[in-house]
């Protein structure tokens, strides 16, 4: 075999033809590029961490200290961040906003996805398309009119401004994702329940929801992550320091005019990323499969 088809390159090879690959070749075509990708993709995180625990004199003294290592790690930046700024408050705000927006969006999305996918009422197809199109409307087009609305509704500078506006991008996304999950549940189950006299509401609560727990978890993780990462609305609708979310707070409050507190900035970025990273690492398989599943449709 090997003489018949010496594999020159193995872009996309899978399973059966692996015996054609020799180790040195794989080293150059697979392992080396993979290593470079990993180093580049992960370096900023390493850099964040190392900067967050570096004392200030080492931070800017590349002549005497290797920038890639830290000789005398310090917790000063983290202490400053936690005890002398509003950072813990920002974490709390972000958490409250993200959890509330996720809960509201999930509730609306479950009902909407079930209605579109299973009730087959006239026009459900167009509603489905409309939901998809709504997902394509970017926040950077909406934030100006929304700012005006938020102001007129008296929500400016309050958490409600964010809790009520985040669903504009969460609901379309979650609905779309859940529609895919609901579609995979056999009709027969519902029909049996209908025959037995169950109402739509009971079917949803007793049959559909228990069967789509993985979908609900994915939708919740995605919604939470998207809310946690949101920036432009939080930047526009929130003014006072104590009401800010983490991304906005770190950027607008920790950067003083000239002196950049790189250590505490990096610590702020690190701690702000941790909740989503922890969440992600617990549910990584859900995450990956639903992300690819949602797009693969």
């Amino acid at each position, binding site marked *: 075999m090997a003489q018949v088809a010496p594999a020159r390159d193995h872009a996309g090879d899978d399973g059966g033809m692996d015996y*054609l690959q020799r180790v040195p070749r*794989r080293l150059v075509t697979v392992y080396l590029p993979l290593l470079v990708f990993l180093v580049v993709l992960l370096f900023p995180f390493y850099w964040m961490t190392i900067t967050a625990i570096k004392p200030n004199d080492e*931070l800017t003294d590349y002549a005497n200290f290797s920038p890639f290592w830290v000789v005398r790690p310090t917790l000063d930046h983290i202490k400053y961040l936690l005890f002398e700024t509003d950072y813990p408050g920002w974490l709390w705000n972000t958490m409250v906003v993200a959890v509330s927006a996720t809960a509201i969006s999930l509730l609306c999305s479950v009902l909407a996805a079930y209605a579109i996918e299973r009730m087959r009422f006239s026009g459900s197809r167009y509603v489905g398309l409309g939901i998809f199109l709504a997902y394509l409307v970017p926040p950077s087009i909406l934030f*100006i009119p929304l700012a005006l609305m938020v102001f007129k509704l008296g929500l400016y500078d309050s958490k409600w401004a964010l809790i009520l506006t985040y669903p504009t991008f969460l609901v379309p996304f979650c609905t*779309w994702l859940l529609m895919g999950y609901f579609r995979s549940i056999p*009709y027969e189950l519902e029909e049996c329940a209908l025959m037995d006299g169950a109402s739509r509401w009971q079917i949803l609560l007793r049959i559909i929801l228990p069967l789509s727990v993985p979908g609900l978890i994915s939708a919740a993780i995605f919604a939470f992550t998207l809310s946690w990462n949101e920036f432009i609305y939080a930047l526009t609708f929130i003014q006072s320091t104590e009401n800010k979310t983490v991304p906005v707070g770190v950027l607008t409050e920790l950067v003083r005019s000239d002196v950049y507190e790189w250590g505490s900035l*990096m610590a702020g970025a690190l701690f*702000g990323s941790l909740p989503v990273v922890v969440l992600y690492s617990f549910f990584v398989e859900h995450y990956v499969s639903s992300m690819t599943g949602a797009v693969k449709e």
Partner: protein
Amino acid sequence: MVAITKGVAAPRPRRGRFSRLSENRTVLGAGFLLPAAAILLVFLTYPLGLGVWLGFTDTQIGRPGVFVGLENYQDLWQDTVFWLSVTNTLIYTIGASVLKFALGLWLALILNEKLPFKAFFRAIVLLPWVVPTVLSAIAFWWIYDAQFSIISWLLMRLGLIHQPINFLGDPNAARASVIAANVWRGIPFVAITLLAGLQTISPSLYEAATLDGASGWQRFRSITLPMLTPIIAVVMTFSVLFTFTDFQLIYVLTRGGPVNATHLMATLSFQRAIPGGHLGEGAAIAVAMIPFLLGAVMFSYFGLQRRRWQQGGRD
């Protein structure tokens, strides 16, 4: 996944009995849709219309505006900064999307190989996409520091350059830097999604092609790419849309500077509307993005693939 492939309009064999069993389903459906519809109509559709209307007024913060017709657009037409932002947005979108696609596809092909700890690699590769953009952009801000950039330091140690690169201070360097940061964040999404597509391609196709004497490039060109096209179309549409309307990365790294060299339409719109107070003008810039977005969606829908993924189904 199997059941998901049912199209929305596909015939449903049991539908007749099913619909007889729930005669009032239109009313019920409307009730179920109500919460989502209410939120979307109030906070998405209405603001979208309001935004278009604002583009025709001279509204400022704290002062209701009057209808001024096309004045905002006429002003923009003669505004060199606006046109610069359009150019920048196009450069940014095209540059970042092409790189994201090429590198993402490459990474997907690598991850599709037989590797030890594959699941682990796949998981950590997604990290840049998971963490908040603003926070990773702050890390990039520090990496791009004019004096203490680690990249400059490394290149100087290697003797490739003699003075630090002014990453965010020089117009072209700044453009390249923001594109690089955007690509860094975008690669994982493209790679993992394309990887899912690669895994659906049957290995027997490659085996057959190899037996027929196809080279690695030919196999890639004639099997991998055509089989992957539908997913590529979807991923790149999303990638282009989100890159085109990007705001956070630029706002953190350069705020549009130096001398507007990295202003995107979204950041210019923000700058004119919120700190500048000219809501009408900002809204006009935001509205000016819509034709580009529609163009991108149309291109992917009609040009690349006429697929049903837009409705959550599959061809």
